[in-house]
């Protein structure tokens, strides 16, 4: 082999490119995990400063429904929270969001102004859930006319129909939906679209489908038809409660299913007259789909959960439901992790008056003709581009649960933002991919003096605070009495102080470093290292504390004077700034990272189509 064959490769890791917005964005675990990229640490700091209105608006820009989400969000941010890796529990991000909503002042003057002169484009939004409402919110300030079609008499989609009022008061819902509708959205409530083709013949420049996953799954086991009068599909039953068509239920109620809908069903049943309400689920407890906190809330109200119970038969006597027969099962996991539920041979009958079925939801598009250029896949779901949200028919967009099946509100919001960008580009004849705005980012030093930072860098040793609850004596009697009372001002402050300010980044300047080790010595979590470079696996293993969490990056500098590199494991950094305080040369600085999310109407750029690079 001649020497020209040898390609000289740099040995070890390449220096981290901190100008890539994704690098520091990933360090802000909560924001990175949030589909709408809500700037969590920033609004938590505002809450600590009791600037509730500012915290609210910052949320509103990203996630559109802070008051609603502050009570109901599936909280992808919390499992991601760095604090949860340092100790057991993450910051109560979701409930702090509610604090911003609860204590805000009137925000009407802060909402975007809607241009009186429209841009001549008309958009149809089908379904008035969070996805469509987000599209409307993003497009109305740009001068679009939005027409919102909804089969129910009021807007909100599943936020109104499926989330019971003891978790989400109507007032909160009406206010936040109102902010959007009051922008001048033309509402066609009570108008169900039965033919997309017919709608397309109307002069719309684009159509957004945000109809959710409205069909609750049924269970076809013996006795199903005979007991029909006493068997209710969970989401339909919740909807009929929301519109006050249903006001009571039998004394003995069995809920089938282990998801969040099942939790809402059992708790609602308890409030409508149920005395013996029980939840049954096929899988073992640990595999239940419901969020831990929703299971806890149901159990706190005294509702037992029977896991490993597979329904076999509705027992009917004299044409009336008597109970349900279950086979006890056991989960067996194959080598590939695949689970099968094996009957133990034991059977049990739960006597009951009513059954609520909450075993999942399906999409249903009977109203979309299959010959109008919208492709459907083998599961009868539309083919939707996951960047642009557009279907195979140009100008028809999907979002929320309608796009890829049941998710949650915050995903619907994220879809809505992306669809709005696409609709805006589409209506202006621009390319949906290449002309798409890029995410932006900025870094700003937080240094105010030798020991003064523009953020509160001290570490709080408090463990997570529980949200106070209303007395059961009150809540179990009144469907509309909110169970969670929310943090008060003082608890909110203490909980906010638990936030590590992960958006205040440790920025390292190689040329200023004299390798005195001061930062290594002071770092409370041993994340800073000066060592020889190496390939990532090797380097991770050689750090002061080996960096085992591979989901977290290693921040690597260029080569220093001694030939070593600086390698920082981002995993458990407290963002306390002690490295920067102990640095004699300012080679470390604490800089606030601000991520600018892509939106059709970017923050700070009201009423214009300005994209932030």
């Amino acid at each position, binding site marked *: 082999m001649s020497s020209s064959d040898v390609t000289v490769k740099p040995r070890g890791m390449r220096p981290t490119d901190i100008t890539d917005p994704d690098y520091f964005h990933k360090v802000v675990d909560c924001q990175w995990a949030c589909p709408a990229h809500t700037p969590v640490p920033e609004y938590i700091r505002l809450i600590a400063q009791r600037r509730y209105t500012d915290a609210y608006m910052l949320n509103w820009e990203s996630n559109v429904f802070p008051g609603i989400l502050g009570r109901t969000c599936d909280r992808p941010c919390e499992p991601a929270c760095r604090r949860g*890796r340092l100790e057991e529990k993450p910051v109560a991000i979701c409930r702090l969001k509610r604090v911003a909503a609860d204590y805000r002042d009137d925000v009407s003057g802060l909402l975007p102004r809607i241009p009186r002169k429209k841009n001549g484009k008309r958009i149809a939004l089908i379904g008035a859930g969070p996805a469509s409402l987000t599209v409307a919110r993003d497009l109305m300030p740009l001068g679009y006319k939005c027409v919102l079609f909804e089969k129910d008499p009021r807007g909100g989609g599943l936020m109104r129909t499926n989330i019971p009022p003891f978790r989400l008061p109507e007032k909160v819902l009406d206010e936040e939906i109102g902010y959007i509708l009051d922008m001048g959205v033309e509402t066609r409530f009570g108008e169900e679209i039965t033919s997309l083709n017919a709608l397309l013949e109307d002069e719309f420049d684009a159509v957004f489908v945000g109809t959710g996953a409205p069909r609750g799954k049924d269970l076809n086991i013996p006795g199903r038809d005979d007991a029909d009068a006493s068997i209710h599909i969970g989401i339909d039953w919740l909807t009929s409660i929301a519109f006050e068509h249903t006001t009571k239920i039998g004394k003995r109620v069995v809920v089938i299913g282990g998801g969040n809908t099942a939790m809402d069903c059992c708790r609602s049943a308890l409030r409508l007259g149920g005395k013996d309400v029980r939840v049954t689920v096929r899988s073992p407890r640990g595999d239940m789909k419901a969020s831990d906190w929703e299971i806890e809330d149901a159990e706190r109200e005294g509702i037992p959960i029977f896991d490993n119970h597979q329904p076999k038969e509705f027992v009917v006597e004299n044409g009336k439901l008597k109970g349900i027969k279950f086979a006890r099962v056991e989960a067996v996991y194959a080598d590939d992790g695949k689970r099968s539920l094996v009957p133990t041979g034991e059977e049990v009958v739960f006597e009951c008056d009513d059954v609520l079925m909450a075993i999942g939801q399906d999409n249903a598009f009977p109203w979309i003709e299959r010959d109008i250029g919208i492709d459907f896949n083998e599961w009868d779901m539309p083919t939707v581009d996951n960047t642009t949200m557009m279907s195979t028919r140009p100008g028809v967009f999907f979002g929320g649960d309608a796009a890829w099946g049941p998710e949650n509100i915050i995903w619907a919001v994220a879809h809505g933002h992306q669809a709005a960008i696409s609709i805006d580009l589409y209506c202006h004849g621009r390319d949906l991919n290449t002309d798409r705005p890029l995410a932006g980012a900025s870094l700003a030093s937080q240094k105010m003096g030798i020991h003064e930072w523009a953020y509160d860098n001290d570490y709080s040793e408090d463990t997570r605070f529980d949200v106070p609850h209303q007395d059961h004596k009150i809540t179990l009697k009144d469907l509309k009495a909110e169970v969670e009372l929310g943090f008060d001002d003082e608890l909110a402050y203490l909980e906010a102080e638990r936030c590590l300010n992960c958006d205040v980044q440790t920025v390292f300047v190689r040329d200023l470093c004299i390798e005195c080790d*001061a930062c290594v010595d002071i770092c409370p979590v041993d994340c800073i290292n000066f060592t020889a470079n190496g390939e990532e696996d090797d380097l991770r293993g050689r750090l002061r504390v080996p960096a085992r969490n591979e989901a977290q990056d290693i921040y690597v500098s260029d080569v220093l004077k001694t030939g070593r590199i600086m390698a920082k494991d981002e995993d458990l950094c*407290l963002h306390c700034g002690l490295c920067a305080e102990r640095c004699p040369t300012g080679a470390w600085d604490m800089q606030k990272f601000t991520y600018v999310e892509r939106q059709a109407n970017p923050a700070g750029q009201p009423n214009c189509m300005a994209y932030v690079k």
Partner: protein
Amino acid sequence: MTYMKKPLVKHPDLPKNELGLTRRDYEGLVSTLCAGCGHDSISAAIIEACFELDLPAHRLAKLSGIGCSSKTPTYFLNRSHGFNSVHGRMPSIATGANLANRDLIYLGVSGDGDTASIGLGQFCHAMRRRINMAYIVENNGTYGLTKGQFSATNDKVSKSKKGEANLFEAFDLCTLAIQLGAGFVGRSFSGDKGQLVPLIKAALRYNGFAFLDIISPCVTFNDHDASTKSYGHVRTHNETMGRLDFVPKMQEITAQYDEGETVSVPMHDGSLMRLHKLDDEYDPRDADSALATLRKRYERGQVVTGLLYIDEDEADLHALLNTTQEPLNAVSMDKLCPGNAVLQKINKSFR
């Protein structure tokens, strides 16, 4: 300095020693020295060494005098005994404490002012008496606490921050230590923990007077281009005489070296020092060779580091005086005061 407390939270995967402690358990208060001070790195190296030695902190006594260096015992081992003495008088305190309780480990931390100026006499006598202690000088060549005057260890060629020339030759504390009877003499650099930690471990385990001269740059007054005690100068002029591995008692020897000569020095307590020499000309067991090497290298402008001299015969003051094996606070009353009959016998022997 830092106003906020160093958070107590620590990395959950932090290694634990035989006592179930992490290195964080050997820390002290947050330093109030200037940011970037070499002394803080030495404190961190002491923490690391004590952690690795599985030392119970309450079996160690920290002793110091006055100066930036003498403040540092506050910043490590906050569960150990401590005594902050009069300027330059730490060796007297150490001597007294050591005679009273020979079971504790004594760690003296001093600076170039405290040792080479006001405390020079005390320092010399402690060595001559072979007090069983580790004596560290955090040597930055300057009186940092009084704003940067030359100290007695500042090299003649090394100018002040403002360009003022130094009229006097420097003491070489290692030369002095070898001449006056220190059994263990080493020099290191605050910016090289890889070298420093094993040296501190061996010094703490050495039975006799173990001296470490640690170049520790003063970032505020003596870290400029014309200084020979700056981070930059020491890094570029550092000549390591040998790499030391400290192998505690009962532990298998795992370090492997490919070239050069390795000298194994068994220690009093059963542990082993393995020195991998990088210079064939000198033998750290030979005082003459060590002194010659120090002088030669100094003339070449080099900063010689590593274990420079080791007296394998670890004799200390207790052995020379043939004192009791027990610390005085453990000697029983009847032994301490054997009664009139014994006194009469002793008196009689002098008649």
